[in-house]
């Protein structure tokens, strides 16, 4: 079934550790996105990529980095995790930047 695959589904991580959240899509979409969802705050955009080879900062980019080496993959890296990065992280993709987005089922990350 076509869609977005995120891994891991959940993770508990010690503060200060490095962590990469994986995201792969098989729909050949040009644009991809990372959001975090926190209770009471809704979804906030972390980073985005409108096409392979390009990335941009969203609303809350600090502490996170991304790369887009090819069309299908869009990993999100926490260089040195902090407790405030405890959240549910969603990867999404869309055919073009203005198009409807398809979401993965999220990664639940707890930083202790």
């Amino acid at each position: 079934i076509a869609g977005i695959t995120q891994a891991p589904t959940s993770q508990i991580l010690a503060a200060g550790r490095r962590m990469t959240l994986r995201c792969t899509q098989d729909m050949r979409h040009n644009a991809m996105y990372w959001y975090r969802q926190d209770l009471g705050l809704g979804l906030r955009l972390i980073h985005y990529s409108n096409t392979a080879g390009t990335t941009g900062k969203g609303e809350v980019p600090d502490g996170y980095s991304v790369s887009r080496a090819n069309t299908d993959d869009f990993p999100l890296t926490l260089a040195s995790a902090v407790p405030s990065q405890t959240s549910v992280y969603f990867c999404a993709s869309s055919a073009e930047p203005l198009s409807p987005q398809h979401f993965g089922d999220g990664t639940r990350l707890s930083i202790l």
Partner: protein
Amino acid sequence: SQQGEEDPQALSIQEGENATMNCSYKTSINNLQWYRQNSGRGLVHLILIRSNEREKHSGRLRVTLDTSKKSSSLLITASRAADTASYFCAVYSGGGADGLTFGKGTHLIIQP
């Protein structure tokens, strides 16, 4: 910063009744989208309405857009228990290069 703001935050109705959720936003938009999120899952796109459109229908869903009031509404007719979920509005502003800006959502409960 949060653009879309949904109202009410929570809504509980009887099965078969209609459910109306409202969304307000702050700046000019290219399009406005509504998404549904079931507990523990990713968001699912429901409907997109462009800034030059006033109303759109999709099955039991009806969306209206009033750009003069910077507001939108989502109507779900003849509700079913399976419609129980959180509903989010999201807007594309600017050139669409910065992803969607989501509201905090309306949690809808359909009582059987």
